[in-house]
């Protein structure tokens, strides 16, 4: 609402606003101005709302950082700065100023947290690649080709996202725990449990529908002439998709990729249940973080530090790719 350009009428009012009315108190003066000039009120409301949202979303992270930096003995009272924080210690040559930055190393020495992060990273990357390739094929078909049964097939894809993961989980858990002989050469005991495949396969299917819808929208927008031109010059059908349509829809592909990566990195259900929780068995970040909770000694500061470390990759991704995230969520949701 406040995007309206200030119209001349109200600018005039603003000038008048400085009437010499000294008897009023500060609040009354402000209120009188606000009544005369509603624009000011909206402006004030807007800034209040913005600051409120910024504080509520960011303060928890700030507080987490303070918990991480607080030495373990002082954890009873964490305020706006770590207790024990004393800038005057800097003069005495203590660059930590009474805080405990070493906790960020402890995160990795206590348990192999980097292994968990790498596992998560690999699983998310592989899933993203699988999803992009498979969803590209489907998106191309739904966005550019005409064939009987298109509507029902799109509906079938959509239906998958209606079911709770719990409804898929029981048979998948059994399937992945079965020893399958043909898999024995690749996997030690022939079962998928405790391997990255036990997560990549379900994730690929669960997060594929959103990517299919995003890519369908983007691929449908490429003019037919461009594809025809490439085909006339001798490109194969698949070549036209991967060499013409996909590069031209790069923003859409990036959007689908970013959303899939974030979704997989953040997933809890399958990540938590498809491995036994040890880093060597491809357990992702979920199990890494929960390991600190299960320690016999209560390590609140290490939990906080690990959480910050775990957030960093997605935080960076959000900063870099925020436009893609916004456009992807809106395109994906509104077309369905």
């Amino acid at each position, binding site marked *: 609402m406040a*995007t309206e350009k200030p119209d001349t009428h109200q600018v005039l009012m603003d000038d008048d606003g400085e009437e010499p009315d000294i008897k009023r108190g500060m609040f009354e003066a402000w209120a009188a101005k606000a009544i005369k000039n509603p624009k000011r009120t909206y402006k004030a409301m807007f800034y209040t709302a*913005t600051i409120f949202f910024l504080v509520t979303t960011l303060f*928890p992270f700030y507080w987490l950082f303070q918990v991480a930096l607080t030495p373990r003995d002082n954890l009873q009272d964490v305020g706006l700065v770590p207790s024990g924080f004393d800038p005057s210690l800097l003069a005495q040559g203590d660059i930590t100023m009474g805080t405990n930055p070493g906790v960020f190393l402890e995160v990795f020495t206590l348990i192999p947290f980097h292994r968990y992060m790498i596992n998560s990273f690999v699983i998310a990357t592989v899933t993203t690649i699988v999803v992009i390739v498979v969803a590209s094929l489907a998106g191309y078909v739904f966005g550019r080709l005409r*064939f009987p049964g298109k509507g029902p097939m799109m509906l079938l894809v959509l239906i998958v996202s209606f079911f709770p993961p719990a409804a898929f989980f*029981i048979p998948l858990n059994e399937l992945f725990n079965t020893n399958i002989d043909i898999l024995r050469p690749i996997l030690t005991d022939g079962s998928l449990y405790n391997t990255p495949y036990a997560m990549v396969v379900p994730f690929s299917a669960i997060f594929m529908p959103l990517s299919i819808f995003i890519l369908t929208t983007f691929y449908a927008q490429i003019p037919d002439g461009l594809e025809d031109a490439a085909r006339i010059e001798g490109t194969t059908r698949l*070549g036209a998709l991967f060499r013409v349509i996909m590069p031209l829809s790069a923003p859409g592909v990036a959007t689908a990729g970013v959303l899939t990566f974030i979704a997989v990195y953040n997933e*809890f259900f399958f990540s938590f249940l498809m491995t036994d929780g040890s880093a060597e068995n491809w357990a992702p970040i979920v199990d890494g973080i929960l390991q600190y909770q299960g320690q016999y000694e209560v390590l*609140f500061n290490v939990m906080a530090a690990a959480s910050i470390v775990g957030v960093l990759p997605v935080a960076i991704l959000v900063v870099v790719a925020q436009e893609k995230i916004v456009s992807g969520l809106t395109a994906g949701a*509104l077309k369905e």
Partner: protein
Amino acid sequence: MATDHTNSPVDSGTDSGGVLSPVFTWMENLSEAAYAYLLLIPGFLLLALVAFYPLLSTLRMSLLADQTRGAEPLGGFVGLENYMNVLTGETRLSRQLIDVALTTEFPFIELGTPFFRQALFVTLAFAILSVIFETAIGFGQAMVLDQEFKGRRWVRVAIIIPWAIPIVIQGMLFFLLFQPTVGFGSGLMQALGIFGDNPLASSSDSFIIVLVADIWKTSAFMALLILAGLQSVDRSLYDVAKVAGATPWQRFKMITLPIVMPALIVAMLFRTMDAMRVYGIIESTAGCSTVPSMTCMVIDGLFGGTRIYGTAAAVAFLTAALIGVFIAVYLAKFRDSDGGFA
């Protein structure tokens, strides 16, 4: 832009055959429909393996008897008995789906166990309350993001970030915030008289913690979807309304809300579906026995000591059915709202 993309791929496009060239030739000669089905095979294979087969299999399991001993986890066909047992509360699960009795006195309903220990109520209350709060807050955030102002980029990043963090870290954050030793959350809520002595062990207090955690994380998702609706509003409509003397509230009610409505309903539908599956944030804060959601019950049936796969499968399908009811309500609403065919 078009030319430089179409030229380069063509040069390399012709020599990509090699061993696969018969395959490519075969693909070239397929009809459009046949080619379409061919390209859909990988996607549908994946969906068949991970979604369609497990769904049917779960449905079958839910009709078989639990078998807690022996090699086979499932017994003979029992029809809808598992569903009946789940609904009447006669299961070996540590928390019941629903446990109420009818009485003759005023509310006519008596709770067998406390409200927040019954999975159906926990799930419903969580879904409804979280969607209401997230819609309101998300709308506010979307209104802020819809303005042009300096630093909007960074405000947007700040608002999106909670949505993008892993559920387990969100859980850890709120666990620490409400952990009586380190966190100030519990002290604050106790001072206000809302929380009891040990919030993370009390079902109703933990429910509030889980709810707040979810609202904190997912409001941004609502905000982004609503923002899409807001940005489709034609700005000149506001000018017309202003000339006609409409107050800001009238402008909001008569222009913004009707245009945003379809996007709003879609966003709420997505959130409701998601909220009904709540599990991770509960598991990583208070734990499933304190705040039992329906998904918690499924996991409890699978790994919670006694092996009751049939019951677990029945709960999973009841969850799906409940989600289906909500979808039906939303779709009816969506049809009623203007622009349902947008």
